[in-house]
């Protein structure tokens, strides 16, 4: 969206009615077109209006679907450019209503053209009235001078909501740092789930240099995301609920990636900012090493190089500073072997993250629950883990007793137990404890990591052990 032209702030809610009617009208129009380009155009109009949210209508200028959209113009119009913006601001006090005029003019053109071939309907007429209405409203509103700090403040706002995360690692090729984003005023931090978090103390450094301990609230091994909690109040945060839905994000729209790649920034130094466009919306088909990644849903592919060490967990924002997605871990394409620059869309992970933040996601159970009278035992399931030698020995399967429930379910030596019944079990002790909380009459669901593949198996005691 070419939103560099500046809107009046005073249009207010009087347009919301007009807006919704305009949207339904545009939807209607779209249905009637045959050409793809034309459909796209109507879509753009509609999206523009919807994306504008409560913003004044003058913001709305649909992007041209013209394929040869001049790159020169695109870059000169970039809303992040202070210099260029200054030059447009000069003219904007006079010309800011222009976008709406354009829209109206275009709508009218469309209508007049379609009348020659198609029949009129009441809806069209009504739509014209709406156009009228919106139009006159726009005449009423007085454009105000632009705030030159708009895009600079989008960067600043994003940087304030991005944190640096430090934890395990430091050995060659395993950086002990990554990035996170604040997603609640109480200090919930969304970040990538990685070995960095696999330690007792994770440090979270805020934009102002405050260094706080991050407690793991929950992790989703499928999305490879985790939520940490730090002890702060009233911090600036990204509201995931307000993030635009995936279908509202246009391919080709401008984005900023904010992350602490290469740990370039330390303490109160602001995170690095890169600019790019959404290159594609696609489903993720990626690998890490020889293994496929568990998440295969939609991602935003970006043309900026964001697959750098430490960038995972960073923010992908639009020109207004809204969170579009979270930068993913370093992955390569399964097909082309190319390093992928992508973000997990905020709207796709919103629900899972909310669960994680609320403590309801797959997580290690901290609270004491009632223990069943006849619980499962490792021996009973036929699982032999590696010797519990460390404070937090990774729960690798050492042996599987033949004919046991574990063997029947397909558990193999060297599998790493990740979760028991969707509860994280990060150590041998935690596995033994988790198994001991499940009644022998119930099934045990294990999530295993085999290589880097996640496998779910279900163990049933009854099948071989009988009623012992």
């Amino acid at each position: 969206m070419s939103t560099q032209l500046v809107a009046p702030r005073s249009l207010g809610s009087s347009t919301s009615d007009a807006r919704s009617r305009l949207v339904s009208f545009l939807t209607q129009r779209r249905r009637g077109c045959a050409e793809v380009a034309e459909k796209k155009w109507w879509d753009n109009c509609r999206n523009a209006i919807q994306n504008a949210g409560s913003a004044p209508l003058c913001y709305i200028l649909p992007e041209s679907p013209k394929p040869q959209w001049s790159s020169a113009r695109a870059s000169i119009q970039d809303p992040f450019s202070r210099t260029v913006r200054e030059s447009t601001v000069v003219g904007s006090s006079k010309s800011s209503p222009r976008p709406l005029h354009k829209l109206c003019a275009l709508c009218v053109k469309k209508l007049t053209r379609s009348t020659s071939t198609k029949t009129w309907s009441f809806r069209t007429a009504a739509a014209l009235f709406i156009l009228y209405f919106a139009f006159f409203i726009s005449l009423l509103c007085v454009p105000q001078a632009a705030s030159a700090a708009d895009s600079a403040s989008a960067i600043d706002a994003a940087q304030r909501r991005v944190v640096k995360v430090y934890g395990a690692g430091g050995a060659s090729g395993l950086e002990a740092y990554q990035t996170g984003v604040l997603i609640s005023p109480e200090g919930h931090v969304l970040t990538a789930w990685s070995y960095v978090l696999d330690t007792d103390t994770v440090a979270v450094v805020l934009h102002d240099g405050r260094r706080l301990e991050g407690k793991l609230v929950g992790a989703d091994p499928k999305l490879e995301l985790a939520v940490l909690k730090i002890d702060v109040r009233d911090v600036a945060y990204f509201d995931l609920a307000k993030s635009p839905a995936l279908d509202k994000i246009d391919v080709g729209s401008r984005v900023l990636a904010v992350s602490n790649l290469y740990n370039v920034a330390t303490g109160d130094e602001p995170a690095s900012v890169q600019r790019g466009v959404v290159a594609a919306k696609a489903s993720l088909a990626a690998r890490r090493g020889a293994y496929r990644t568990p998440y295969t849903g939609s991602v935003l592919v970006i043309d900026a190089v964001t697959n750098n060490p430490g960038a995972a967990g960073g923010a992908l924002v639009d020109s207004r500073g809204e969170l579009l997605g979270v930068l993913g871990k370093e992955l390569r394409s399964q097909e082309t072997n190319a390093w992928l620059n992508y973000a997990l869309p905020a709207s796709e992970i919103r629900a899972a993250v909310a669960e994680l933040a609320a403590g309801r996601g797959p997580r290690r159970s901290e609270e004491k629950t009632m223990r069943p009278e006849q619980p499962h035992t490792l021996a009973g399931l036929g699982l032999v883990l590696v010797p519990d030698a460390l404070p937090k020995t990774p729960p690798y399967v050492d042996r599987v007793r033949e004919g046991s429930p574990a063997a029947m379910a397909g558990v193999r030596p060297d599998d790493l137990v990740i979760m028991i019944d969707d509860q994280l079990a990060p150590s041998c002790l935690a596995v033994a404890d988790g198994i001991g909380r499940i009644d022998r009459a119930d099934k045990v669901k294990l999530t295993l990591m085999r290589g880097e593949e996640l496998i779910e198996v279900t163990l049933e005691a009854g099948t071989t052990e009988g009623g012992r």
Partner: protein
Amino acid sequence: MRVLWRDKAVRLFAAGSCLAVAVVSCALIVASVVLADDPVTNKPLDVPADVLEAEAKRVAVIDAARNRTVAIFGQGGQGGGSGVLISADGYALSNFHVTSACGDWMKCGLADGKLYDAVIVGIDPVGDVALLKLLGRDDFPHAELADSDTVRVGDWVFCSGNPFLLATDFKPTVTYGIVSGVGRYQYPDGTLLEYADCIQTDAAINPGNSGGPLFDATGKVIGINGRGSFEKRGRVNVGVGYAISINQIKRFMGQLRGGRIVDHATLGATVSSDDQWRPRVDSILEESDAYHRGLRYDDIIESLAGRRVASVNAVKNVLGSHPKGWRVPIVFRREGQRFETHVRLAGVHREAELLAMVQAATTDAQPPRRPEPKKPEPKKPEPNEGEKKPEDAPKDGEKKGEGDKPKIPLPLPGIAVPKKPAMPEDVRRQYEVRSGYTNYHFNKLERERVWKAFAARGSFERTAAKWNVKGMLADESLALFEFSEQEATADLPAALSRVKFTNDLAANRDPEGSGGLLVALHLWQRLLRLGPEKFGQVSYWGTAPVVGQKELCDVLVGVQGGVEARFYFAAGGELVTMELFTDDGTDPCEIWFGEYQEHDGLRLPRRLEVRRGDGVFAAVKVQEWRVAVEKSP
């Protein structure tokens, strides 16, 4: 029928509405001049005039900037990198790691397709900067230098240079991006190639871009590109490049133009983060100036060189972007008490050590290893740690011999270094070897420039051999000075001191507590009467600030009889102050010259203030000068 009628009514109504909207819209369209593009009919885009104007300006800016970009090649046309012209007479900036691979002179191509000879002028091996001079024209297109402290994250920037040596016709490649970060600190390679307070950009910087300019949107130079975070993806851009800030280079420019080998600053103390992540002194050398000025173990540094330093990196950023020898303000805190003073910055290296390292990097025709960000070290490397570099260099050579697939370093290596071509005549005329200098020829030029500006204000050549000064101290007591080539006397209320000069001036520190005022006066007179040529060893030091002034002064340094005197000349040529250093590491004796007035056709100060360390030894209000000009025969 009914249906038809209704249909008609609708049509009529719709047509009416349509007409009305169309009329109003048309009026508006005409009023706003701008016609929207109709995507379906593919009419050309009608772009608002201000956007077109901005676009045209941008194209013009890039066009001009391209002409100011230099493609640098070795003497045989091999290897190379990029650079940028900064003056009409051909001075150009590049990276040390580019020019060190080329040697004393190089070939430089401009966008006009012409190739020029260029000679090395000055180098800053720690900051990875080199100054060279293109020869053969006095009307080179050149770029203006911006104030890089005003650069902000998100600003549009563009790079211009010769990545992968693509431009066989010397026309530079332009890449565009934004500022990703400012005030970045990147660890040095050993003790060389440290990037302090640098600018991070996502504009593509690739091998061969090294030494090229980073321009702001108006085409002014904000930095010199030289480095990127490359380690994981092979040697190509990953959207993380670094440019040396132009404000750092400005601080070194005087020394670079003076043909020197420049060293960067340390405090003589190391800092680490305290529990609040503030920079806390965790070790300090007792012989450092910082210690003399009162900085102690456990003190928290609040500000350095006028910049607030809230973290260890911030301290490193300031030190790494300042030259050795500068005197800068420092603010530190101890148990709630705040101290403000000025500290003289020490050098990262001993002089001989730096020369050896430069030698190793330059004569080793191999390009230096690419700078790689090192693991964070808590302390600044001690000077002797830098000795690793010469040991490492041959290893690189060995690797090459083993037939490894050659990587593309910054700069690109020559395929084979052919027989060294002879130095062209015009280069030879502007090149002079002298130990401790990159190119002594340029030092002489700068020294002449400074002295000419001073001498233009009146010559002391014909003054008497003996000078007398009568003045009054702050407490209105009398002060008498008499000094000549052979001896000097100071008659002060505290004591009468007299010195006969021998070859060893360092032995004379009289009067007591002044740090050698009589020797200083003697050397001052000597420079004024004899000029730098006959004084003995006088060279151009570079530029440095003096306490209490923002403007940089030109500094001449004279070495005589085991002592070193530094003379600070303000922009107009006036001598502001001088410092006398003996080699025992104590505070120098400073004489501040003020309230210049005409006296027998000579400009002489009416105020002499003698300072040492933090205190004032004597402030003399001059009542009478006797420097009687000898009558010409």
